């Protein structure tokens, strides 16, 4: 990941005519728009029935059966405290070497290409709803400041286990 960014930057700094552009998927959490790199997304599916999993954090709503595969679901609306979700939302399914995972969002806005030069990689978002370690960059998109989320970081770093109310303490002690 980091090497990729490095390559893109070196391209533009050498003044090459070809600017790197990547397609991004824009989506709503509440009223705000966020973006993720389209390449990270395996598919977008309609809401599926899910089953809760004990000993997990509240935003981890449970697991669903997606064509025979067990997919864990993290409700981004709860996770980032955007608002209380009042409808089922849409599932974005991601897959990497740690397995497949679903994120629940409100709705898809569009898919659009962004030039690397448009993206501000340094400045963290001023209002910081998303913790800085999960921000890939910030971009000015259609008169709105849009945070690009580093989905891989969320699914590899975020701890799902919560045993606050459980007797399942042995491993934690």
């Amino acid at each position, binding site marked *: 990941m980091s090497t990729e960014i490095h390559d893109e930057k070196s391209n533009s700094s050498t003044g090459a005519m070809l600017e790197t552009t990547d397609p991004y998927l824009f989506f709503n959490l509440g009223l705000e728009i966020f973006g993720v790199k389209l390449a990270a997304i395996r598919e977008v599916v309609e809401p599926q029935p899910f089953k*809760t999993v004990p000993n997990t954090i509240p935003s981890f709503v449970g697991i669903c059966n997606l064509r*025979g595969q*067990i997919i*864990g679901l993290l409700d981004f609306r709860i996770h980032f405290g955007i608002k209380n979700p009042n409808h089922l939302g849409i599932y974005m399914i991601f897959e990497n070497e740690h397995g497949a995972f679903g994120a629940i969002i409100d709705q898809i806005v569009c898919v659009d290409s962004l030039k690397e030069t448009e993206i501000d990689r340094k400045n963290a978002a001023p209002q910081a709803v998303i913790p800085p370690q999960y921000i890939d960059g910030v971009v000015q998109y259609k008169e709105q400041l849009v945070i690009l989320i580093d989905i891989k970081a969320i699914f590899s770093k975020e701890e799902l286990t919560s045993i606050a109310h459980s007797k399942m303490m042995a491993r934690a*002690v």
Partner: protein
Amino acid sequence: MTIDKEFLSIFLDEAEEMLGVWEQCCLKIERSPSINDLNALFRSAHNLKGSSRSVGLEQVGGFIHTAEDLITRLQKQEIKVTPEHIAALLEAQKCLSEWITELRTNSSYIHEYQKIGAKIQALTTLGKEAIPQGGGSAFGLFDEEPQVTQGTLQKKDAPSPGSEGAEGATSPSSLSKVDSSIRVALDKIDQLIRISGELVIQQAALKRKISRVNVDTEIQNALGVTEKIVHDLQSESLSLRMLPVGNLFQRMERVCRDVARLQGKTIHVVIKGEDVELDKLVIERMKDPLVHILRNAVDHGLETSDVRQSSQKPLSGTVTISARKTPSFVTITVSDDGRGLGKERILKKAREKNLISHDARLSDAEIFQLIFLPSFSTAEKVTDVSGRGVGMDVVKRAVEELSGTIEIESRDGQGSTFTINLPSTLSIFDAVIIGVQDNLYAIPIQDISQFFNIEPDMIQSLENQRELVNVRGDSIPLEQLGDYLPSSQSPGYSRGTIGIIPKGNHKKLALRIDRLLETQSVVVGDLAQNIKKVPGFVGGTILANGDPAMIIDLKHVIDSHFTKIMSTC
């Protein structure tokens, strides 16, 4: 010299196979020397030498060349085969195995081989002096003119000794198997298993949907046939991960012989059921525990021959390693006809170490289970064979991690038997589907020792809301399984009236559940890494109705319970 990674990895796979043949030949020769096995041994060494040089591993090639020299002289009957030669060749094999293993991670690794190399060289030249003109017959078994005596030695394809050109052209039976198989990455097999599992689930869903509408018999028949094919496909793909235990057992025989040789004990190793199959992962995980049990059996179990003679036993001790398939398990037994575990010694030790109270009355089975406790070691003095810092508790844990069980039977003066029950595969097992609150869970059937209905008169209430339940005269702490499985979505719970008692732990605990639905065979599904870390579960699965469900790890529930009790005391 740089070595192409891909070539190296192909070579390493091949080398492991060749070293297996090498070992097998040595063990056969040790049992009874035959020219066929010597030829096969020579071929494996020679091929290995060739391929190691072709990938640029000159030192490996050079070392094998030294060993090959010795084998050639044995093969030409210029030197008599003695146990010493076999021991040296086995030692060389061990050295190469370690070397090969290390090369997987470090392609420029060079193993410490000089010492054993020198030993083999010495043996080679020693023979030269002893029998200058290659004529003596080894063990009195090899005739000088093997061609004439084909009948007695049952030579099928043995080249005449000394004709170097014949090697590789003929293949012994153990090598010919290789030709009809291909090597496939485990990932690909797992992918196939996953897809066929998916197919089974979709098939079940389809069947359910079709049963709700009226369809003619033709469609129903077609559906029935598809169902059978889908199930066959699944069981065939699951079988791809299965390997016969023969290879593992061969290694174990080697372990026994190595220990016996070291201690000057004569030993007879009997192997049964080599064709029984186990999941590749189960085989790998069982290697170290079996090594430990066998080292103990030969080191502490078997007596020396003079002791055996005085107790009127056969002079050589017998160790039997066998595998047997039952419908739900594969049973591996390791037994010896040695002195037995010594119940009194175990009891004395356990009392000294305060593991049991002085007036405790234990059944035989319970006494033998004591040796599985951490830090329990009965060997009065630590020998360099068995006393390697690993206790039997590690053995037990390894077996339990595979959802298996281990039991011991032993009679003083007559020997001991270790019986290990293992699931034949890890990817599919029989499970009980239970309900706790409004969620369904699967529990592996082998983890549960009993179910019972909780009647009010069985309950005894204790202070701070603890309860005991009386089950067939036993008072067992009773806990609500739901307390261990709270989920933010469904707070509040009822008090279930069905009790389950987990199996396999001498610390007993009964758990209340709400509903008991059915038993079904369950395919373990792949979970994302961070879900795997959630405590209390061994995995996830998809039930016959298409719902996903977590598989409960009862052992973890028990551990949490007792850890909690201990810490509040």
